[in-house]
């Protein structure tokens, strides 16, 4: 049974009372895949905004993530891990993007690109600014744990690092955020 077939009947990654996937097995096609991915797009975009440093890169990162996920969808053996799988792709791509951009682009960490809707809450702006001052892997760990809600074990799995390293990133990241956000 392929992952996308399993998705129809397990679907434990969906929120309470929701069903992201068509119930008719015969209709689980590209549209079904699209719906499954689209449901996770907001969390991917929110995480991407924490991972990279401008709006265009964040959107391109999500796009690339979805592109790869579409291409490799048959590799997902356990559909209940869809969200983690997507985030693993996205984190890897974010770190890869950062490496590629390292020479040419020098972001000012104080610059904040806003979303397309007006007036993001002040806490969002403060958080984005603070996050962008974190080292990339600490930033990724914080975003995955606190934004996405992944447990430490899953963050470690997604980032391909040990749990202890993950905890170290989270501890250091949180301490740095406390300084940046003025919670002393």
């Amino acid at each position, binding site marked *: 049974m392929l992952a996308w077939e399993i998705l129809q009947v397990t679907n434990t990654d969906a929120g309470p009372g929701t069903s992201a996937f068509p119930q008719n097995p015969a209709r689980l096609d590209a549209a079904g895949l699209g719906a499954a*991915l689209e449901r996770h797009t*907001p969390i991917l975009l*929110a995480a991407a905004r924490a991972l990279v440093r401008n709006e265009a890169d964040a959107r391109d990162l999500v796009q690339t993530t979805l592109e790869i996920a579409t291409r490799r969808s048959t590799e997902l053996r356990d559909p209940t891990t869809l969200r983690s799988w997507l985030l693993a792709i996205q984190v890897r791509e974010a770190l890869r993007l950062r490496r590629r951009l390292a020479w040419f682009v020098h972001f000012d960490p104080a610059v904040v690109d806003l979303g397309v809707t007006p007036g993001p809450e002040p806490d969002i702006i403060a958080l984005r600014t603070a996050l962008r001052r974190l080292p990339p892997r600490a930033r990724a760990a914080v975003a995955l744990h606190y934004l996405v809600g992944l447990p430490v074990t899953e963050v470690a799995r997604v980032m391909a690092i040990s749990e202890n390293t993950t905890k170290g990133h989270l501890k250091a990241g949180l301490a740095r955020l406390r300084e940046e956000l003025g919670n002393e």
Partner: protein
Amino acid sequence: MNSHDDQTEARVRAAFAAELRQAESDLELSPLKVSSRKSYRLAGGPELRRSNRVLGVAARIAAVLAVVILASAATLMVARPWNSAMPETQSPSASASEIASPSAATPSATSSIPRYSDGIPKAWQGQPVLRWADALAMRTTAKDDAPFYVGVWLNVELGFNFGCPNEPVDPSAPNSWAVNPCYGWPYGISADAGGPYELGGEATFHFLQGDVSTGPAILRVHVHDPRATLCGNQKAVCDSMIVVESAVWTGDSYTDPKPFTVADAIAAAGAVSPQTPLELLDASNRGDDGDEILPGAIALTCGAIANSDMTVRGAYLMPSSEAMTRALPDVQPGADGAMLPSAKRDWGDASFWNRWLVVDNVAFSVYVREEPSAADKAWLASLEAALEATR
């Protein structure tokens, strides 16, 4: 955790919740776009759109791929993969008007040519072939735009790079040179095989004539290009760039992979993982073994989607064991090394990890359980033994 941590954590969670609401709202008003140019709405079948985009990209790189694919097919027949994977070039001793297939260059015919330790000839057409560090120095010492030769290792990436289109050096100058701001995309130059493949703003392929592919090359280049005047306020930047004109030599038997060849790797993988035979990577099978190949390597990938325990998903060949060590410095060779955390390459799914198994100049990309079992270890050892048996 103290109260300050609790307070920070609560604030971070609240801000992230707001961030998620913001993302949902933004996506409602503005569906995803690609590079701010191409609308891409997910609902209703991304597979079709993806196919269209694949075709679009494929059309742009078709010329390069055609050479690579055709030459790659010949590679398998003559078992001299690196050499044959390149466009036809002259041998170092040939006259300018002679064009010889690189596969025709025998060791005896090339053994008398003075070479650097990595096999790149020291001279071309009677002119010295510089190494990369010397070429970089020419940016300041050269007095004119006279061409010279430099021996390097190229990496040419295939596939997509949505977030990073070419950009003019000076956006306000309409005819400014276009460069790609992403690190080493799609062209990368390394001083040594297996080293870091970068351009770093020091070189440009903007005026490249002909095709180039991954592997060794002697490049005809120059600095102080008079077209630097097109670069507007970035004229000085363009003037100091090494301009790659063409590749005049792209390897021979001396720079073919050693000790193991492409044929060796395919045979070994086929012996222990016959359900996923390996083939040379091209546009049609890209992505079957992950999305980031080992730069500078000849890439093999399994023709089928493989996500089972004890499966060879791909293999990468460097010209030498030393080059492989440079490319994967943290991975210990052999089956035992493949069991170590440092050999983890990519997260597969909940059950499997993609790992490296390095044997001399070959790096197999394999799928085994996240916590490898005794059977996994035995299978890794059998793959290593199968490759060793081809010596």
